């Protein structure tokens, strides 16, 4: 059995979302193979957790996938591939899988299941299936779980968050999204993740528009 969190996104109370987080996963190649073979028993979004910044980052991709599914305008095969696609800053699905999806080398894994109207799927059934399929340590998903896992540098690169810095521009003291412009120190204690999150959510929301 694996730990499964059941999530309900605001405004979508009829669509449960099941999230499972695993560390020290040892059979990523097997899991990836199931996706490549389109094994119907493995209809999940399998994400490399190093590319997830925060719960909200994941929820934003989930919301977009669910919202687009409900409006019947998915750009990819199903809602799970759409979730992976939603994370990506560009419109290339293969690229999205390469960056955010499970790799053979993945050890920290997020499995997300969105059953839509299939009521046979429950937290228990997901827990049972993942518990048997994933060889790894099941951990409760949350900010703390991601804290030591996220690869901030890789995320900055994928979302091009440092583009304001490079090119040796003559703009003095400009440091991308990290600069607090006009505060006098009191309200400027926002940490790096919060800053990155704001920009990333915006980039994801604008993708494909």
């Amino acid at each position, binding site marked *: 059995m694996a730990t499964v969190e059941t*999530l309900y*996104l*605001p*405004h*979508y109370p009829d669509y449960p979302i099941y999230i499972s987080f695993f560390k020290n996963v040892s059979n990523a190649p097997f899991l990836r193979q199931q996706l490549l073979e389109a094994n119907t028993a493995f209809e999940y979004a399998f994400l490399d957790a190093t590319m997830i910044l925060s*719960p*909200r980052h994941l*929820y*934003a991709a989930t*919301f*977009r996938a669910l*919202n687009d599914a*409900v*409006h019947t305008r998915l750009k990819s095969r199903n809602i799970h591939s759409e979730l992976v696609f939603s994370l990506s800053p560009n419109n290339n699905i293969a690229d999205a899988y390469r960056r955010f999806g499970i790799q053979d080398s993945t050890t920290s894994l997020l499995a997300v299941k969105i059953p839509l109207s299939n009521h046979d799927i429950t937290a228990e059934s997901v827990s049972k299936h993942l518990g048997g399929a994933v060889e790894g340590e099941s951990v409760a998903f949350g900010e703390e779980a991601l804290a030591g896992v996220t690869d901030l540098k890789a995320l900055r690169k994928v979302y091009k*968050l440092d*583009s*304001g810095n490079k090119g040796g521009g003559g703009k003095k003291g*400009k*440091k*991308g*999204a*990290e*600069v*607090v*412009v*006009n*505060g*006098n120190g*009191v*309200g*400027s*204690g926002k940490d790096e993740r919060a800053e990155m*999150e*704001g*920009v990333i*959510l*915006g*980039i994801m*929301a*604008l993708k494909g*528009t």
Partner: protein
Amino acid sequence: MSPTKPPLVGASTPLPLPPPFSHSALRLLTQGAEALVFHTTLLDSRTPVALKYRPPKPYRHPLLDRRLTRQRLLAEARVLVKCRKEGVLVPDVVALGADEGWLGLGWVEGATVRRVLDKWVGKRGEEGEGELMGLMGRVGRAVGRMHEIGVCHGDLTTSNLMDSPADLRSLAGDIVLIDFGLATQSIQDEDRAVDLYVLERAFAATHPVAEPLFQEVLRTYGESYKGAKVVLRRLEDVRMRGRKRSMLG
């Protein structure tokens, strides 16, 4: 936009909302000519947002209406993301329904500069004037930074500037610019000067005693980026003629 404000009473038949939203989960905050703004949450229950919804206009052809709404919504979202990337403080774009006409914006705590000024004018106090000047200075720098990255706000009033302090009782917060519904990506001195002119008029409209405060805004604006001095000179032209430039060809 304070979360403590009582909800405005809507029309007797509530406006239909785009799915997945329903009135039960939304609280109307303000209504403008183009959009309604609601308070709600998105992504999780701990993420408050301002949901900006541009309802369809029945007098326009539906196809044209959808296109215009979509275009304007996207323009606003793009400008916000640009600002956010460049470190200009604006609300986050949390989610977007471009075809449905809504935009989910990260909630900004604090009070509008307009409210801060009204309160100060009401008290008529000399007390806290230093603090207030500090606030004006931050307004000037915030506007300057926005102009520096090539964004003009288009409707720069004291109601569209939020003083967002970590401690809500003090004035010493970051200035967050809101409502980019009329914003454009422009580096023209004229557009920048018009932004300042509109803001100046907003100060003058609050109360005559607020007018000298604006000098402090202009002072820090002038020091905030390289092209600022030219814009201040252009502002004098704009003052002479008003915000509309020559309408001749």
